């Protein structure tokens, strides 16, 4: 209500001003938009969008600030606490819950038109909702798949990509047996998304992050099986050496160099392979299964901040970003799956086998929960995974610890 009134007021004032002083500088509203960089191309892309938008909307001036991902959280915290936050900010969806809970974000369901909201693929938009409000828009979405090196598969005499984890293990063994510094499959053990790599196995073994009793599912029998699935590969030395030292980027680099038979990754990896792995012939298939088919769906969010005084203008820019043309360009540039219904039918996604597989798996996607303190829970899990992968503790023991930590946090927040 209040928002709408404010919006109306701001818009009418702005319109009146525009009428009186059409084209004069003082009537422009500045909208500060912060984006984080997926690649070196992200910043320039949004700068370009802002330029176009500003040209078309003389009463609004969008300013783009772009930052590296590792600094986003720190900067956002500093900014919000100091009252210098931008009007619109990009963030990981998993941080969104925390910021929303602390009142830093503006609910946008009333700012956007129902028609606009309807252009989104519901799964991805629903992820931005909590406590009855929509806190942002899914600026990027990805599903994950199995990248495999066709040349190495041929050499090792593997006819087709594996569909089950057992087949995967066998394939990895054959590839690793080729020698010459070639690894069968990558297992991630550090930094961003380490827990995600584990979720692939967790979900496909029928496990879940949150058990039916509302408690952590980290220590469930399925989770143990899922962990032992990776552990047997590590023990058989069919993975890269030093799992606990390998980040997502390290695995991708190994694959791009043709040194790795299989790796689980997302659509953005296509873009890197196009630049750095020109010699690598690869295919992408669905994530191997033990009992249940699944993939990891991740979104990032772009949100309007509660402190913004130009929320309607901010929304206008968001609507501009999320028009089909701009989204398509962004998707092609960074390699993300479509978040707009209209995009999903584009040949770029449907006819390109390197994209379509992610699109197909969309409906199977599972997501990380939107707990305000999810980062802490994930960190606890990461720590234990690292201990398990290095052989320091058994899967059961480590997972029990991780689950206990998660449960403790859940209990504290009740």
């Amino acid at each position: 209500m209040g928002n709408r009134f404010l919006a109306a007021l701001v818009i009418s004032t702005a319109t009146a001003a525009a009428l009186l002083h059409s084209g004069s500088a003082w009537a422009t509203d500045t909208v500060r938009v912060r984006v984080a960089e997926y690649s070196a191309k992200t910043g320039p892309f949004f700068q370009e969008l802002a330029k176009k938008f500003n040209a078309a909307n003389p009463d609004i001036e969008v300013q783009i600030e772009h930052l590296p991902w590792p600094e986003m959280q720190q900067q956002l915290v500093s900014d919000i606490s100091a009252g210098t936050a931008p009007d619109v900010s990009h963030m990981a969806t998993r941080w969104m819950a925390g910021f929303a809970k602390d009142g830093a974000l503006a609910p946008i369901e009333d700012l956007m038109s129902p028609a606009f909201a309807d252009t989104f693929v519901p799964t991805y938009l629903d992820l931005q909702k909590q406590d009855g409000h929509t806190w942002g828009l899914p600026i990027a979405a990805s599903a994950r798949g199995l990248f495999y090196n066709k040349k190495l598969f041929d050499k090792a005499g593997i006819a087709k990509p594996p569909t089950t984890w057992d087949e995967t293990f066998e394939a990895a063994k054959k590839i690793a047996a080729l020698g010459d510094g070639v690894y069968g499959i990558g297992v991630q053990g550090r930094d961003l998304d380490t827990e995600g790599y584990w979720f692939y196995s967790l979900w496909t073994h029928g496990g879940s992050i949150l058990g039916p009793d509302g408690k952590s599912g980290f220590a469930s029998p399925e989770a143990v099986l899922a962990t032992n699935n990776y552990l047997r590969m590590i023990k058989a030395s069919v993975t890269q050496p030093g799992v606990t030292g390998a980040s997502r980027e390290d695995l991708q680099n190994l694959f791009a160099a043709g040194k790795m038979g299989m790796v689980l990754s997302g659509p953005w990896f296509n873009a890197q392979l196009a630049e750095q792995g020109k010699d690598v012939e690869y295919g992408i298939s669905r994530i191997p299964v033990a009992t249940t088919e699944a993939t990891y769906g991740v979104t990032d969010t772009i949100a309007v901040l509660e402190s913004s005084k130009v929320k309607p203008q901010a929304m206008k820019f968001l609507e501009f970003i999320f028009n089909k043309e701009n989204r398509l360009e962004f998707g092609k540039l960074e390699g993300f799956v479509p978040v707009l219904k209209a995009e999903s039918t584009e040949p770029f996604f449907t006819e390109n086998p390197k994209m379509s597989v992610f699109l197909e798996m969309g409906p199977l996607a599972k997501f990380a929960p939107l707990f305000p303190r999810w980062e802490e829970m994930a960190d606890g899990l990461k720590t234990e995974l690292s201990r398990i992968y290095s052989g320091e503790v058994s899967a059961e023991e480590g997972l029990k610890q991780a689950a206990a930590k998660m449960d403790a946090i859940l209990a504290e927040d009740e």
Partner: protein
Amino acid sequence: MILIAPCLLLSVAVIGYPIFDVIRMSLFDVSRTGMVREFAGLTNFVKAFADPVFLQAARQTFVWTVCVVGGTLLVSVPIALILNEDFYGRTIARTIVLLPWAISLAMTAVVWRYVVNGDFGTLNMTLAALGLPFENYPWLADARMAFLIEIMVGILVSVPFTVTILLGGLTSIPESLYEASAIDGASSTKKFYYITMPLLWPFMQIALVLNVIYVFNSFPIIWIMTNGGPANRTDILITYVYKQAFAFGKLGNAAAGSVVMFAMLLVFAIVYLFLTKAQGARNDV
């Protein structure tokens, strides 16, 4: 007075307020966006000390600081002694020794992370070319090895500063002392032991204190190379605090951790001052 005022003003204004802010946050319940809510007493401190990772990080900070500072002094003293000799190409050698200073810590860490990369790093490439079995050895996968490498990089970046201070000290030792001791029949080891070391000691103390402060608070090397992992085994207090604040949004806990860190350095400084004073008193007698 007027002369000191600007210095004091700048320092109090720019550093004083943030220090106050941290202390305040450590005593309150703080939202992840830095909003100070109700007074929490020592809750944040209690929580910090109840966190096994905090205690582990504290232990590791101790190891980190002792190893890096100790290692730095052990490496720097011989280097300073050599660079104090007159030999061909000394200017070049001195410049090379200073080089690590020319890159920021963060960049040094980034470059080293690449250097020790198992499959693509230049270290394994070189070792393998020398016929050593390090084709694809994953240096950062094992916590102990990773910590060792970080300590080594820590030493590397601390050496230029330390050598500079020590060289300054060495050049201030009058040649006549060496001549006198030579006449007294001192061998070169004895000269080192009885003349160089005692006269260099004040400079080593300066290097020690400053290095302890810098190394204790040193963030980029560990953050960039291992991010505290694997399994928090390379976390030190500053990386712990940073994670608490900016990854977990627990600004109150982070502030409490910062205050504890500060207190630890303060205790170190007081003990140091006490020891040097006691020693001074002994020397006076």
